């Protein structure tokens, strides 16, 4: 075994030496990084992590977590009791109802972005879209802040399952989400061709490294540097044993059944595995919530059973493995849906009063934050924004809210857009 102590900026003489000895090299050396195999003990350390459950389309939270029985806007579902005294949620979320003492609901979200694209951006970044700045999303920010707790992490610190999330903005492509489908298949991972192929790959990469540096030194723009950075990350990924974390189908059948054999179920199971492997941020996407038509049929027959099974399995699983106290769970969509039911038995976009659910990490267990009026059209307590939610999530992970970033135009930006912590979410 011939470990190479190359730093990432390689000198000409060094890579020439590599080439000269190429034929003599018996085993490939990892030219780009000093990575060591992650020790099992380190992997078991309780690093903080965040799992975001993203409900794309805007879920009808008025039918799920903040029901209005008896009102004209009540809809077709009935509320049921939960593990928390006095708290009721939808009858079609029975397993989650049994876990509400582990979670917290914020019923007083009040935001202004009811367009999918804008709402998605706003809820992911804490900022409204702005033509001059691309803001980083939750995943990029959390990965950026927490990645240093896990120096041996070779797989990307920000993984997005089943969707593309929002990008890293001015933090740079290094913090872009690594997108996989719910089967955990990573396309094009292997060079193919057996042992020789890896050795050849390393020789090629050595030469490629020097080409990259030359191009960067021509001072043409940041894109050249970004390209090299991603090259190096890719090599780390290809050679890492930590990639096994994506193989959700290697879990025992009983465990796979527990989460449900749906895309979202597999995604949640993969999220648990990734958090176990040390990934600080995982987003799991579940689409199909844009119920302008047939809201009740869609929720009852498809969305709610799938969600209930997978999310409750995830919470239970994290608890069983002692990961719940170090993992923040955030459940949300772009916005909620209108209290008024439209002519197609649907609800339309509504950002003025809606709910999100959080849990794990430093969040207070069993909290119910805020309230809405009798028909759900307005928030009656302090309204909370995306920035406030983000500040709260970061606090639950122990990330300092005094952190500032420098945006691409040189302006300092406070983390979480200076949102204020939702104090009722903390003891």
């Amino acid at each position, binding site marked *: 075994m011939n470990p190479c102590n190359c730093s990432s900026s390689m000198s*000409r003489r060094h890579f*020439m030496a590599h*080439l*000269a000895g*190429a*034929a003599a090299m018996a085993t490939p050396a990892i030219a780009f990084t000093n990575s060591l195999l992650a020790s099992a003990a380190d992997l078991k350390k309780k690093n903080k992590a965040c799992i975001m459950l993203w409900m*794309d*389309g805007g879920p009808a939270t008025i039918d799920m977590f903040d029901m209005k029985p008896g009102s004209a806007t009540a809809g077709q579902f009935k509320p049921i009791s939960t593990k928390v005294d006095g708290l009721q949620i939808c009858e079609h979320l029975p397993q989650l109802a049994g876990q509400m003492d582990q979670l917290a609901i914020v019923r007083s979200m009040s935001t*202004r972005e*009811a*367009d*999918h*694209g*804008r709402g998605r951006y706003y809820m992911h970044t804490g900022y*409204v879209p702005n*033509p*001059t700045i691309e803001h980083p999303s939750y995943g990029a920010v959390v990965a950026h802040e927490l990645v240093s707790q896990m120096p041996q992490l070779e797989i990307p610190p920000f993984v997005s399952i089943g969707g*593309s999330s929002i990008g890293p903005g001015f933090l740079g*492509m290094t913090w*872009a989400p*690594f*997108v996989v489908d719910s089967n955990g298949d990573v*396309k*094009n*991972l*292997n*060079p*193919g061709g057996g042992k020789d192929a890896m050795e050849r790959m390393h*020789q*090629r990469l050595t*030469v*490629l490294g*020097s*080409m990259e540096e*030359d*191009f*960067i030194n*021509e*001072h*043409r*723009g*940041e*894109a*050249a540097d970004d*390209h*090299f950075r*991603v*090259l190096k*990350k*890719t090599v780390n*990924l290809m050679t890492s044993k930590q990639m096994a974390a994506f193989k959700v189908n290697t879990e025992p059948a009983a465990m796979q059944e527990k989460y449900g054999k749906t895309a979202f179920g597999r995604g949640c199971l993969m999220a648990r595995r990734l958090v176990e492997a040390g990934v600080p941020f995982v987003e799991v996407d579940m*689409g*199909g919530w*844009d119920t*302008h038509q047939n809201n009740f049929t869609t929720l009852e027959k498809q969305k709610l059973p799938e969600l209930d099974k997978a999310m409750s399995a995830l919470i239970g699983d994290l608890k069983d493995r002692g990961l719940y106290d170090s993992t923040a769970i955030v459940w949300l969509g772009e916005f909620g849906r209108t209290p*008024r039911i439209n002519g197609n038995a649907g609800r339309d976009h509504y950002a003025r009063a809606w709910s999100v659910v959080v849990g794990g990490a430093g969040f207070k267990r069993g909290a119910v934050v805020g309230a809405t009026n009798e028909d759900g059209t307005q928030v009656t307590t302090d309204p909370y924004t995306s920035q406030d939610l983000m500040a709260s999530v970061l606090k639950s992970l122990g990330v300092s809210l005094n952190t500032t970033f420098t*945006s*691409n*135009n*040189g302006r300092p930006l406070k983390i979480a857009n200076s949102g204020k912590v939702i104090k009722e979410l903390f003891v």
Partner: protein
Amino acid sequence: MKRLSAMFGVAVLALATCECLKAAEVSNSTPSQPAGLSTIASSAAKASSTGSDQPAYINDLIHQNWQAQGLQPSQSAADGEWCRRIYLDVLGRIPSVDELEHYLRDHTAQKKQNLVNRLLSDEYVEDYARNWSNIWTTILIGRPPQMRDKRALVNREGMEKYLRDSFARNKPYDQMVVDLITANGANKPGEEDFRGEVNFLIGNLDDNGVNATAKTAKVFLGLQVQCTQCHNHPFNDWKQNQFWELNAFFRQTKAVREGPRKTPEPISELVSRDFNGEPDSRGATNPAQAILYYELRNGQLKSAFPVFVDGTQINPDGRLSTVNRRAELAKLVTSSPSMGEAIVNRMWGHFLGYGFTKPVDDMGPHNPPSHPELLAKLATDFGSHGHDLKQLIRWIVLSQPYGLSSKMVNGVNDKDDPAKGEKPMFSHFYLRQMQPEELYDSLLVATAFDKTLRSADDQDQNRTQWLRQFTIAFGTDDGGDTTTFNGTIPQTLMMFNSDLIRKATSTSPGDFLDQIANDRTMSNADRINRLFLATLARKPTHEEIEWANKLLEARKGDPVGALQDVFWVVLNSGEFILNH
């Protein structure tokens, strides 16, 4: 000279609008002009083909801003660089070694004009039409979804066919806008009343056509109005009633599905039907004043009739025999100054990396352009030159800013960095990544893939299939999509290990690398040269020759393998994938 051009310009306009009403054949004699023009216009064509009506104000106005900002421009791009750049931006692929050497051998003062005219002529009409069809298909209907939706109303091939035909005959832009807004017909090629352009609106009619409204305003007028469906716009001046007044123009439009449901490729038709207006509280309708209702946030109902974004009202009759609302809309759009500015902004952004506003399709007082005078002048000239897209391209690519190097000069113009949120000053070329379509086509060129071996249709299908892996669509009602092909790990993995790259670097007998390795007329130096010219449009440096030779040595007995290593390396370099 300028006034003569203006006269010729007017003549061209009159004839262009005449010609586009007939199905004109593309003539072989006059490059890139609609067929059948009179001799005056032909002289205009010749004059413009020598670049003598290149508007001087483009360079002048850009210079003015440099001076105001205390900037000096970078030097000009190297010949090979400029050649690679223009092939990528006009045809969507890098030049072959032969094409590159052809350009490098031209030592005349008109070398750039000569190349531009050739690229915009019949010589390259197929590549040109395919490239701009790719670009506009994405703009109009998005990228191909991961899973082919068999029940979709949109027929992608139909859309591409319309666009390819239109670009092949250099259809004036305003005519294309009229087509896309007003056409009726079948969405699928081969059908008797096939009109490919219907594929733009046909997928956007749900919910009374709110998406059709938003997309039409965004793409053709540069106005982002989708928020105002529900309330007044938070940043620009748009009001909710304006959205619905624009939406009213689409109320006579319906998509009709033909044929039994189970057919693999359902045919759909876009049709116009009378709109009698929405019923009032007593259930009565009044077709002579065909009204629509929309809801304010407080639940109150308001009414709307067709009114254009500039306040122009049309006859509110909803019956086609009196008013064809989409025809009226098309007239209003094509005579609006916003249309010219939107397309100029978009085209400038395509070639220079950034438009005069960011994003290019969000224009208005809330987002002032970086060079307002230049934008306005170019838009006016574009209109008076028959909305000729090739002419617009010529003006842009023969300008000085387009010819600059991407190398910044420390302390001189490195503050001109739009990636950091600054308004672009165009004092150097801006690095940008190839689009996936460009990468695909460039790989074909770099490996000297013989196009006659496979039909263009096959190539298109293969490309579309390859593109699907990168598209992740949002399953929401605005049809947005994004691509993961943007400098990320999956893209790098694809460039490292995918079948496409394996094929490109194949050493099987008869393949590109094998041919070069076995060509006895070439020395090792020649071979390395060729690989660099084929991919990076330049010769290797001494250092690069050194390591290439070392690789050849290390692989003694496997010269093809060594070439494969070199080829793999250059294909994976930033220099290859970036347009610089």
